[in-house]
């Protein structure tokens, strides 16, 4: 079953250069989908179209088997959560206040006791209880991403979309964030994330969408991650290596 499907999806910013060209694809339910591709291929734009942050010029998107356009603003925010590439707060915010923002789609006047409880649970799930009142700027990169995921989970969404959640993180935090996303999927939530690291995607994702120049080159399970597809995708040869049952790709040869 698909959480999101999109057909003939086209989008451009200035009407003369297509950023997305006639995309057809799906985000399978309760799986972790990795959207891979070189810089500028339209990965983030696709996520923003799926979030209804951009209005495609052509095509249709269905979320949980309903047209995306049929969702009211609040209803959409209760179904679909989004984690941006980086936190953009101008004024410092603490962990608790940031996660509380996630309750916005469920609150009409001011947060009640149940909302506070849900925020505490989301913070605890991310292992941040002892940093509840710490300012975001005082947290490590991995912790900041955990806060953003906690905020998204406080929305109680069915689908979570993330734009480069591992960008600017070192290896330890990249692994931490991907493990976290796996845990989210195990809670029954569909996750789709834009990723740059093929090996990280291969290790943690179930489904892959490979994008190049605004089009989908291939999509499906781990089988689509072939040397040929990846060489076409990144315009550089990648070697598939296998050892002790693990598979990974190396860009610089085997020597």
């Amino acid at each position, binding site marked *: 079953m698909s959480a999101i499907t999109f057909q003939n999806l086209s989008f451009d910013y200035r009407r003369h250069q297509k950023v997305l060209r006639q995309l057809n694809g799906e985000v399978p339910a309760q799986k972790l989908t990795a959207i891979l591709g070189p810089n500028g291929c339209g990965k983030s734009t696709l996520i*923003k179209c799926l*979030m209804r*942050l951009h209005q495609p010029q052509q095509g249709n998107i269905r979320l949980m088997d309903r047209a995306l356009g049929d969702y009211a*603003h*609040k209803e*959409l*925010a*209760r179904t*679909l*959560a*989004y984690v*941006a590439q980086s*936190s*953009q*707060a*101008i*004024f*410092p*915010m*603490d962990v*608790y*206040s*940031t996660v509380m*923002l*996630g309750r*916005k*789609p469920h*609150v009409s*006047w*001011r*947060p009640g006791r149940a909302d*506070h409880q849900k925020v505490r649970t989301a913070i605890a799930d991310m292992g941040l209880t*002892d940093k*509840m*009142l710490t*300012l975001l700027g005082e947290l490590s990169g991995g912790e900041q991403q955990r806060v953003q995921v906690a*905020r998204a989970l406080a*929305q109680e969404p069915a689908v979570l979309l993330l734009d480069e959640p591992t960008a600017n993180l070192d290896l330890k935090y990249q692994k931490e964030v991907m493990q976290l996303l796996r845990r989210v999927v195990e809670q029954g939530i569909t996750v789709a994330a834009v990723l740059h690291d093929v090996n990280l995607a291969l290790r943690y994702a179930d489904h892959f969408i490979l994008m190049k120049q605004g089009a989908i080159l291939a999509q499906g399970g781990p089988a689509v991650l072939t040397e040929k597809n990846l060489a076409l995708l990144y315009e550089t040869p990648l070697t598939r290596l296998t050892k002790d049952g693990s598979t990974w790709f190396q860009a610089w040869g085997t020597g």
Partner: protein
Amino acid sequence: MQKPRQQKRKQHLLLLLILVLLLLLILPALALGSSDLGLREIVAALINGGDAGVQQIVLGIRLPRVLAALMAGAALSISGAVIQTVIRNPLGSPYTLGLSAASMFGAALAIVMLGHWARQAQLGMLANNPWLISASAFLFGLLCALFITGIARWRGASPETLIMAGIIISALFGSATSLLQYLSDDVELAAIVSWMFGDLGKATPQNVRIMALALLPALLWFLANTFPLSTLHAGDEVAASLGVRVNRLRMLSVVVASLITAVTVAFFGVIAFVGLIIPHITRRLLGFGEGVVLTGSALLGALFLLASDLLARTLVAPVVLPVGIITSFVGAPFFLYLLFHRLPKRP
């Protein structure tokens, strides 16, 4: 570890402290003036008793001045806090958006053009008429707000666009006001300069009532929208993903904030720096929740302007200084301090 409930209690205690200080300052502010009045006479006048002359002084002159300080301080500070949030810029304020420059030009235009026209038409009562000057200031402030929001909508309402538009408008109206000053005669020049200094001495029971009518609904609207406003801190895309109609919220907030500022500027002239510094002081004192920043800014802004006005009335007594001079002298160094200590702290 400090829990959110304890933090909230601390914020409420600080808000209460500011409120108590504010109430404590009101009686000395009412007592101060050329007529020496005791506290008993003032209280009697306030509860509709006592000498008619004292009543006239207290209710007709001093109370409007105190209420004007409270409301103007609250209005400018709330406007500043909201504008800083919606344009996501710590330097944002009604002044940064060019509103004060536009209102200032409106007043100067009324002084010069209406003055000329009234003298020619032998309608002396229209020359230097405070109502017409205020109305013109208000009209240009409103036009500026509508122009800025129109540009912002056309350009996609980005914070940078709003600030750039504000800078351009300030420069344009500043030059136009300078031209009017250059072309005006000595009397008109003096009137323009006098209006340019923010002065609460212009407060009357009538303009205080009009201000209350503008301020109270605006305050309620902002307080009802604290949660949507706070989502803007996470960025436009995240706010939109949380179900907030970002452009609509931003436009409405700028218009409402501009309107209450324009009313203040129209009645009392330009009172600089209040809208810029008070939200920053509030965030340092109370933290960063939008609700507490708006409530705190309103109370602290009222306290700051009332204290500044007391200072303006006592510093070189019996001469009463325009309060705008005091706020500039206090505000400018404080703002410089803020600029060099950008990382805010919290209790």
